[in-house]
């Protein structure tokens, strides 16, 4: 009986999460003329809505902008987080405490608190409406999480590993590259995926710092699409599915990394 109840509760929870997805898929397949479809599976699915949405909103350009931003952020963010995480893990100086506190601050600062100066700074640096306007601040914003994440990884390794390398006379750099990095692959994969997802999904900076439609990212494009085609539900739903598909696929392929990353990342 308890068993039945608990399973029922879990299935209900999962159904609540899945319901909007099914609803939007059914809406995306309605005849394009039904402006406000209810919840009903269409008798003949209109897959061409996806093609229409793709061309009307220019999703090709939107998705590639998102990809450029995400692929621009991830490698730089990973290298710097690794270096800084290693540096922080082996740091014995007293300045470590303040550095730590400064990074903690970054975990709590909302993007609202930095976006306005960024807008004017990027404008005077002539970077507004370029992908750099997003890439650079996102690398900075992801740094606290990345540094804590990598530091936690390096500190979880047995001390003997580093000591043995030091005994052999390896430099810090050598120790990092040939002793520590080989152990860091799972940690780096998780961090890379999380950074990719955050960059891909980010909205506020995208909305304000890239207002040129040709450079706009997918979430910002979807935001504008709603304002233009808010009444055309089939088209809007198809557009939404186009925007979420890449990240959902990535999640399904690497779900262990995503779940572990977000759960452990929160705890650290």
């Amino acid at each position, binding site marked *: 009986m*308890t068993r039945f109840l*608990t*399973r029922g509760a*879990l299935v209900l*929870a999962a159904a609540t*999460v899945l319901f*909007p997805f099914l*609803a*939007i898929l059914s809406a995306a397949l309605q005849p394009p003329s039904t402006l406000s479809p*209810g919840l009903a599976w269409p008798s003949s699915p209109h897959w061409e809505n996806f093609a229409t949405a793709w061309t009307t909103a220019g999703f090709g350009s939107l998705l590639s902008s998102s990809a450029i931003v995400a692929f621009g952020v991830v490698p730089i963010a990973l290298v*710097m987080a690794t*270096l*800084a995480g*290693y*540096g*922080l893990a082996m*740091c*014995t*100086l007293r300045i470590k405490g303040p550095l730590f506190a*400064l990074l903690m*601050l*970054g975990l709590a*600062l*909302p993007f*609202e*608190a930095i*976006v*306005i*100066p*960024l807008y*004017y*700074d990027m404008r005077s640096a002539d970077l507004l409406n370029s992908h750099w306007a997003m890439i*650079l601040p996102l*690398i*900075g*914003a992801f*740094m606290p999480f990345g540094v804590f994440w990598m530091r936690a990884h390096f500190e979880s390794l047995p001390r003997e590993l580093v000591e043995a390398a030091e005994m052999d*006379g*390896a*430099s*810090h*750099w*050598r120790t*990092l590259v040939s002793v520590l990095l080989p152990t860091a692959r799972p940690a780096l994969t998780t961090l890379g995926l999380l950074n990719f997802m955050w960059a891909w999904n980010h*909205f*506020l900076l995208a*909305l304000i710092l890239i207002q040129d439609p040709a450079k706009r990212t997918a*979430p*910002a494009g*979807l935001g504008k699409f709603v304002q233009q085609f808010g009444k055309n539900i089939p088209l809007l739903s198809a557009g*939404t599915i186009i*925007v*979420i598909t890449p990240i*959902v696929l990535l*999640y*399904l392929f690497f779900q262990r990394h*995503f*779940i572990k990353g977000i*759960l452990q990342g929160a*705890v650290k």
Partner: protein
Amino acid sequence: MAETAYAPRRVAVPRAGTATRRRGRRAHRLVPLLYIAPGFLFYLTFVIAPWLQSVWISLWEWNGVGVATWVGLDNYAEILAEPALRAALLNSFGFIIFYTVIPIALGLVLAAVVAATPWRAMPVIRTVLFLPQILPLVAVGVVWKWIYSEDGPFNQLLVAVGLGDFARAWLGDFTWAFPAVGLIGSWVSTGLCFLLLLSGIGRIDPSLYEAAKMDGCGPVREFWHVTVPSLRREIGVAATVTIIAALAGFDVVYVMTGGGPGHATTVPGVQVYELVFTAGRVGTACALATVLSVLTCAVMYGINRLTKER
């Protein structure tokens, strides 16, 4: 550092006498700073510096193009005086009920019930429950906007179960728009809270439960006296993560209601956007952003103190 990067030496410190070694050690103590530097430089340039700049701008009246005039704390007084700005801050704290309190309560009950009876389908359930965490919130907003619309699925459902009188344009309703938008926060966070708490339950010492049983505790008292106190740290973590999401919630509101009707669902992000790009009141926008960031940090600090293990 560039030097070491391009020419990594196999043997950095020659195995010489201990004296040279000791001298090398002292210099070595500064080496970590070189590793920390590039990441920190990025962080300082693109996060901390803009934030300080924002605090500075908040003391001026500036329309974004012309000359700025020093106004001291006047912009902060405006936040208290103007209903729209006050509503934005109050709403973002109100969202904590939906982003944090409801998900943690639901998550706790669900985790406590589920932990006792393992199920092989759990990995699938976990994958599904985690899904809202990885979606762009803009897309989430678009979907729910339609679900709540006048002839959308939600009203359809109400009609189907005979509650048709309740059907309304949820997002246009002064009373219901706020809880309607808030519930999306619960939809997003509950899975995360549940999984965080579930992993915490797995770490509770089973002897605590045995002791509770010996004392004649029923499942409910066991929940309050063993499970909840033992999950103090996990609850703190879940609260921290979700409160940050609640206070910085912008995407969903921007897409669904734009802050309306009236100021019923407005949040600081929406007000900041309007103050800068519509009203040309950059100083006031920065003041609002500063208040939000200070309040967020204060809340984080408070939770951290409260839930730290003794």
